[in-house]
Structures are given as structure tokens and as C-alpha cells.
């Protein structure tokens, strides 16, 4: 019995026509993510008097209004003379799917899994004639007994999860107030300022080395069936995790951030599950570089950089050592290093045909993403947000997200994608059980679910 049924598929175009002949180039950080796509689902409750189809109509109209400011989203992919991807702003619009789901949104959230959730964010893989392939897909699903799910999927080529969230927030502002608080900015990534002395390029620091080695790897193949689980950590739980991850012998060093602590926790946990004895599994973190590079809040595009965290020296699954290793790597990722990387990548003329996140365990820092302030109607905040970076073909993917609860600034939600059996084992890991977190989304419908967050 299908729970989600399609009503229709259509294209939403901007209300103002785009001038002919406009092109938007894509940066190196965009082009390297060619083979990935992002899917985001936000859940809302609705006012009781809402008639069927009313919410969808309202959102469709405000989306059309908003798209006038985002010609890059309504354009289509085209190759430049050098063979790189760019967007031709041809005013074609984004695809929208309208659907209906049985039950209410609260009931859905008590009993959902990865497969069901991905049904709420329609996606079409790139097809042969790319000029007719929409890069963005929006799905609006109305729950028959109340509630709304907004699903957005897009090619990672155009935007990372943070950029998608900024777009949803702009859409919410447009629906609520009729104007955007943060209009988008489309510009290139910052360049290194030319120094007076002629300096040789930095002799291949670790970041560039990591990218170099990843680009040379062959395209990976999906092996086992992946599943995703979602775990909520309350403010208290995260604080105790941070306390545990703080290196005992160095009190003056800053304590790890929630991301670092949780990433360390799961790095240790997953390495244990996979049965590694000497050191931890190879892990890469993915961080948002907008603040580091000093970019404006409205910047549209990819700005997330991956870096490997060495896990060889860490034995006996020490959480503090893991978190420390992560923190050290985070500290090295400064503006200078990123701009060096960008320059190096621009020098590489060939195609980026690899998957940046296709080999190691990836921990993505999305803890400051602003999903819960995307309010479309007064007093109706999102009650739940899910993010997916697909496809997950490496060892696994961990996304650290903010929590809908307002109780403390340290509460977090973690989404973990792993092969099915490993995911089930992870939940029974003692270290993780120690914090007794709440399980929001289970791997399999067979297991009874814990209570979802109110």
C-alpha cells in the first residue's frame, strides 16, 4: 500500500523573465561534486482549517516569485569551450512534484525510514540530454490528516546542503513576508591576494595532497545495501560527550566543539563495528568554509571542503585522542590553505570524475545549518529536518545536524548512513549506549521505534 501518492509533476518558472544570453560559471569546488546530489526534507505542521492543496498552491506561488532572484537555479547545464560545466540561464524553471501522503505528519515521523523519507524528495538522475535535465527538484507532500513535507533535491554541482538550506530560508521569508532577508550573491570564490615577494606555491600541504590522491582513485562501486539511522543527542548528552573527549592532560586547550566530539564518538564506534584492530578507520571530515573565507551569508554555491584525519596512531579506541585529531585537522584548514587548494584545483585542467566522498568514512559538519528558522507561516517552525548526501559508496557517511529542540545550544541530531548490518550493530555499541540518545529513525521497520521528539 503506497503511503505517498503522486498528484502531478510540473515545472515552476520565475515570475520575471531572465535576460537572454546569461551564463553562470561553476567554481572548482562545485565541479568536483559532480557525481553527488543533496536531498533535504523538512516537516511542518499546518493550521487545522487548511484545505487540501491550499498550502501547495501558496508555496508554489512564492517559489515562482523567489526564483526571479535565482536565475542559476532555473538554468540548465552546458559545457564550456574548455569542457567544464557551467549553467546557461535559459529560464527553464525547476521541476516540482506534488504528492499526498496518508496519515498525519506526526504519525509519519514515528514510523519512517530512509526509503520512505527519500520518497518525499523526488530526484531524477542526470540523463543523456543534460540540456533538458532540471538541476533542482522540489516535492511538496501534503499529509491527509494534517502536515506538510517539503523535499528539495539538487545536484551537488550547484549547491551544498548549506546553500540549499539558505535557499529554503529565503523561500520561507518570501512566503511569510514577501521579501528575502538575505538576497543571494553569485560570485567567484575568493582568490589569494598577490604578495609582493614572489613566493613559490606552498609545497603541497596535506589538504592538496588529500585531494590529489582522491582524484586519482578510480570511481568506487556500491557494495552492500545502505541504510540510514537518525539519533538525537540532548544538550546534556553532548556536554558529557565533550567532557569525555577532552584530552585529560591538557586543560588549557580549547574543548572540542559538539561536531568534533560527536564525530570522534562515531569514528571510534564505527571502527569498532568494522572490526579494525590497529588504529581507526580512514576518515575524512567535510567542513563549511564560508566563515573561514569571509564569504557573505548570501553566497550561492559549494563551499565545503574535505580533509582526511589521520587515525593511525590512535589505539584502544580512545575518544579523546580521536576528537583531538579531528580538532587539529580543523585548525589547519585556514583561509590560506583553502585558497591554495582552489588555486591548485584550477590549475588541474582535466575532469573531476571521482567522488570526493566515495572512499572513507565521511563526517560532515552541518551543525550550524539554519534549517529550523525556515518558517513559512507564523508560529509553524519545522518540526524535523533530514539531510542526505547521496550516493554513499564509501565506508559510511555521518551528518551532524542541529536539533529542533530549543533546550540548549549543544543538542544535536546525527544522521548516519552505513551498510545495513553495521548500522544495527552501531546502535548496540556500548560507548554510544552510554549516552542513551533518542533514536528518531530506525534502520528497519521491524524494530520498535523510540518516541520521537515532540
Amino acid at each position: 500500500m503506497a503511503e505517498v501518492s503522486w498528484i502531478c509533476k510540473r515545472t515552476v518558472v520565475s515570475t520575471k523573465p531572465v535576460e537572454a544570453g546569461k551564463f553562470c560559471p561553476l567554481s572548482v569546488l562545485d565541479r568536483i561534486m559532480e557525481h553527488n546530489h543533496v536531498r533535504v526534507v523538512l516537516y511542518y505542521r499546518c493550521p487545522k482549517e487548511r484545505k487540501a492543496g491550499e498550502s501547495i498552491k501558496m508555496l508554489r506561488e512564492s517559489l515562482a516569485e523567489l526564483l526571479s532572484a535565482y536565475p542559476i537555479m532555473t538554468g540548465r547545464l552546458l559545457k564550456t569551450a574548455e569542457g567544464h560545466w557551467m549553467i546557461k540561464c535559459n529560464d527553464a524553471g525547476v521541476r516540482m512534484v506534488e504528492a499526498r501522503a496518508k496519515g498525519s505528519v506526526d504519525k509519519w515521523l514515528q514510523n519512517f525510514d530512509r526509503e520512505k523519507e527519500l520518497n518525499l524528495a523526488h530526484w531524477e538522475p542526470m540523463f543523456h540530454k543534460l540540456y533538458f535535465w532540471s538541476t533542482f527538484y522540489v516535492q511538496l507532500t501534503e499529509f491527509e490528516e494534517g502536515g506538510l513535507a517539503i523535499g528539495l533535491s539538487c545536484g551537488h554541482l550547484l549547491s551544498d546542503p548549506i546553500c540549499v538550506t539558505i535557499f529554503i530560508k529565503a523561500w520561507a521569508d518570501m512566503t511569510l513576508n514577501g521579501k528575502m532577508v538575505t538576497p543571494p550573491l553569485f560570485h567567484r570564490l575568493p582568490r589569494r591576494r598577490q604578495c609582493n615577494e614572489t613566493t613559490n606555491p606552498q609545497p603541497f600541504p596535506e589538504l592538496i595532497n588529500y585531494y590529489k590522491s582522491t582524484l586519482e582513485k578510480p570511481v568506487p562501486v556500491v557494495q552492500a545495501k545502505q541504510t540510514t539511522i537518525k539519533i538525537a543527542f540532548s544538550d546534556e548528552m553532548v556536554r558529557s560527550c565533550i567532557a569525555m573527549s577532552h584530552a585529560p592532560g591538557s586543560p588549557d586547550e580549547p574543548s572540542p566543539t559538539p561536531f568534533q566530539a560527536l564525530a570522534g564518538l562515531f569514528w571510534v564506534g564505527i571502527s569498532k563495528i568494522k572490526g579494525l584492530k590497529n588504529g581507526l578507520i580512514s576518515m575524512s571530515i567535510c567542513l563549511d568554509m564560508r566563515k573561514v573565507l569571509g564569504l557573505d551569508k548570501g553566497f550561492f554555491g559549494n563551499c565545503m571542503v574535505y580533509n582526511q584525519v589521520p587515525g593511525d596512531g590512535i589505539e584502544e579506541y580512545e575518544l579523546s585522542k580521536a576528537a583531538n585529531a579531528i580538532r587539529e585537522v580543523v585548525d589547519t584548514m585556514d583561509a590560506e590553505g583553502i585558497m591554495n587548494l582552489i588555486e591548485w584545483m584550477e590549475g588541474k585542467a582535466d575532469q573531476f570524475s571521482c567522488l570526493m566522498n566515495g572512499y572513507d568514512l565521511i563526517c560532515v559538519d552541518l551543525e550550524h545549518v539554519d534549517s529550523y528558522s525556515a518558517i513559512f507561516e507564523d508560529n509553524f517552525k519545522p518540526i524535523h529536518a533530514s539531510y542526505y548526501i547521496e550516493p554513499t559508496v564509501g565506508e559510511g557517511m555521518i551528518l551532524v545536524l542541529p536539533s529542533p529542540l530549543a533546550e540548549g545550544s549543544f543538542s544535536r541530531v546525527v544522521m548516519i548512513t552505513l551498510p545495513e548490518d553495521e548500522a544495527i550493530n552501531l546502535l548496540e555499541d556500548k560507548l554510544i549506549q552510554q549516552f542513551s540518545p533518542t533514536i528518531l529513525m530506525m534502520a528497519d521497520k521491524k524494530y520498535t521505534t523510540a518516541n520521537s521528539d515532540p
Partner: protein
Amino acid sequence: MPQILPDFSSSVKLKYVKLGYQYLVNHILTFLLVPIMAGVVLEILRLGPEEMLNIWRSLHFDLLQVLFSSFLIIFIATVYFMSKPRSVYLVDYACYKPPVTCRVPFSTFMEHSRLILKDSPKSVDFQMRILERSGLGEETCLPPAIHYIPPNPTMEDARAEAETVIFAAIDSLMKKTGLKPKDIDILIVNCSLFSPTPSLSAMVINKYKLRSNIKSFNLSGMGCSAGIISIDLARDLLQVYPNSYALVVSTEIITPNYYKGNERAMLLPNCLFRMGGAAILLSNKRREKSRAKYRLVHVVRTHKGADDKAYRCVYEQEDPQGKVGINLSKDLMVIAGEALKSNITTIGPLVLPASEQLLFLFTLIGRKIFNPKWKPYIPDFKQAFEHFCIHAGGRAVIDELQKNLQLSAEHVEASRMTLHRFGNTSSSSLWYELNYIEAKGRMKKGARVWQIAFGSGFKCNSAVWKCNRTIKAPMEGPWQDCIDRYPVHIPEVVKL
């Protein structure tokens, strides 16, 4: 320029000769009357007042003669006034402005076409070529049901489109004129391709709770020229019913007529037809004369249906796969040209000034008697009309008429810009064009407007209006937010 004098055709002197000739012939009565009046006045002055009184007394007036003469005069005057047709005034009209969210840019249209017709790339290419040369812009609108992939037009969607378009136009008209529903005496709705039961006119009566003794008509199947046919019907009815208001609604409902097949000759309407509608208020009430915008002067209808080729030129039929669509034949333009010639032969004597008619007569006599090889004289209609509203059926139609009537780019600007901004909205396109001219502030009192429309059958209908009062711009209407951007240059081919 008449072809009989080719040698002087570049001479400036000939232009003045022509002007002088036109002035003389058009005002011949004045020229004849002035010397006669001068003669009479001179004679009176010469005779003096005393002589005048003597002449007056010498006329023997019998009481009977006086009575008979006055009765005769009164009788003739009454017959004259009674047989004069009632003036029909266009009080005001309103055009429907589709919502911006229904906009269909070229790239979206082509993408949908490619996704829906994935098995016929040749048909998609054909559609693309049509669209590139169509003269449409990026802001034309299709109804919501056609935006779906694939389109799934149901009767409910068609009714919804009809309700949206027609009610919006009528509401706008009522707001502009202060018309109350109970005042409407005659209702005529024309929509060629969508004809449900109960009719669209019944739908309007139901929505606005019109009177039970209303005279309502629903014209369907009459093509793009049905708007003028409705005006003609309203005019005839207003001769029979004194002191009445007639509401005419012209529209074309796109939803049920989207052609789902891939025959090339039938794909053309998909590319050109767009959402639109207009509501027009006509009246024969004396008191509307002061606020009416236009007065209807002539309506000329020409039907070429007797000719088989003309009859089959725009034909609705099923394609080999059983999908219904409208087949446009290749000789459409030729047939349109002939229908136009028929129409202007009838309308010419009604509207052309005497100078043009004389020239035409001389050329005709010359061709018959002296030399059949003389080129027929094409009367200069620019002298008869200030504004032209040519049905925006497609770029080819406007080009053809511009050539045949020797019109300048400014004369056809309203038609071309309407095609660009709204697409081919069928019977209502004439009203969008008229609105364009008004929005540009070009409509002055006394200006004469010629509306020409072609339709399946094959018909060519014209209406001639005379502007009753100068219309000030800026004004509310479908052109309100974009009139400043027009006119735009429309390239021959838009590269997609």
C-alpha cells in the same frame, strides 16, 4: 501609388498633386456649396430688405397648403428618425490578465515538449522551429493543466480555466463601468473549441445571478473571428431591444485542446495559442453616449465557406493515432489573402474617402475598357483609419496583411506586440490590441479603428469603431505593468 503613372512615382511634385486631388474630391460638397452661398448672400444684399418683404408677401399661403407642408415635413422627419439604426456604443471593455505563475518561457515549453514527445524528436524539432519564428515572447501564459508533465486536461480543468478567465474579465468590467448584474439584458459568450453543457453563457448567468428574462447566446465552433460575429449579433439585437445593455464575452479555452499527438500540421496551435479573454459592454442607451469609449460604425462579414479549399483550410480531425487536433493546411495564407480581398471590396465603399473610391473606380474602368494588364489599384486604407487591429493569429498573418494593405510598422505595432506579450489569444486578441493603443495614449477623439479577424470556415470579419472621447493613459489593464517596455524589437528568429 497608382501604377498608371510609373514615371513620376519618385517625384515629390506628384505627392502634392495627390494631396490636392484628395482635398478637392473629399471636400467637393464644400467647394460647390461655398460659391452658391456666396451668390445667394450677394443677391440678398443687392435686393435689400424691402424687396425681401415684397417677395415674401407675394407668396400666397393657403392654410391647407401650410398644414400639408408642415405635415409632410414632420412625416418625413419621423420616418427618417425611426428608420435610422440605433447607435451602438461600446461603453468599456476589460481584458483578462493571466497570473504570472502561468508563464511559459520558450525553454520550458521545449523541455516539456521533449519530455512528452520523447519518441518523436523530429516533431520536437519542428515545434522548436515554429516557436523560434513565431513572434511570441517569454511572458505568454498557458493554463495550469497544460503545465503538467504529461498534460492531463480534464473537463474539470477546462471548466476551471473558463471560470477563471471569464469571471475575472467580467469582474474587471463591472468594476470599471459600475454595471450591475441585473442591468444586463443581452449576454453573448463565444468560445470556439470548448462547448460544455450547460453552456458557458449559462455558467455566467449562474455565477452573477442574471435576470431570468435575459437574452443569452453561446457561439461555439466559429473560430478566431467569433468575437466580431458576437459584436454583430449584439448590434442586431440592440436594434430590436431599445434601452439595453449587451455583455459580450470573447475567449478561447486552451485546456481541452492541447494536441497530444505528433503530426506536424497539428502541432502548430500548441505553439501559438495562449490563455486570454475579454468582456465588452455594448449599449444603445442615449445616456451612455457621454461616457462610451467607442461607437460602432460598420461590421462587415465575409464567408468563403462555399469554396471547398477554404472550408478545409482549418479543420479539426483525428490524426492516424486517433488523437484530435486542428489541422492547418499549407494554403492558409493564400486563402486568407483572398478572404481579405473579399472583405475590403465590401468595406471599401463604406469607409474610404471619395478620392480613393474615384481612383479605384477609374482604375477599374480602365482595366475593363482600356487595358486589362493594369495593376488593380489598392486603396490607401490609411486614409480611412487611424488605427488597425489585426488579429494576432501568427506572425505570418500580420506580415501578409501589412504587405497587402501597405501598412507601416507603426500601424501593425499593436498586433505584433500583442502577439509577443500574450500570444495568439484567438477572438480576444483584438481587444488586447485595442488596449495597447489606448495604453500608449494614441487614442484620440474621432479616431477610427479597424478590427480585422480571420477564422476557420474560412471567414474574414471586420468591425469599424469611431473613438468617442480621448482616452488618457496610464490606465488599468493587462498592459499596465509592461507598456513601458514596449515596443520591443522582435527578431526574425530567436535562437533557443
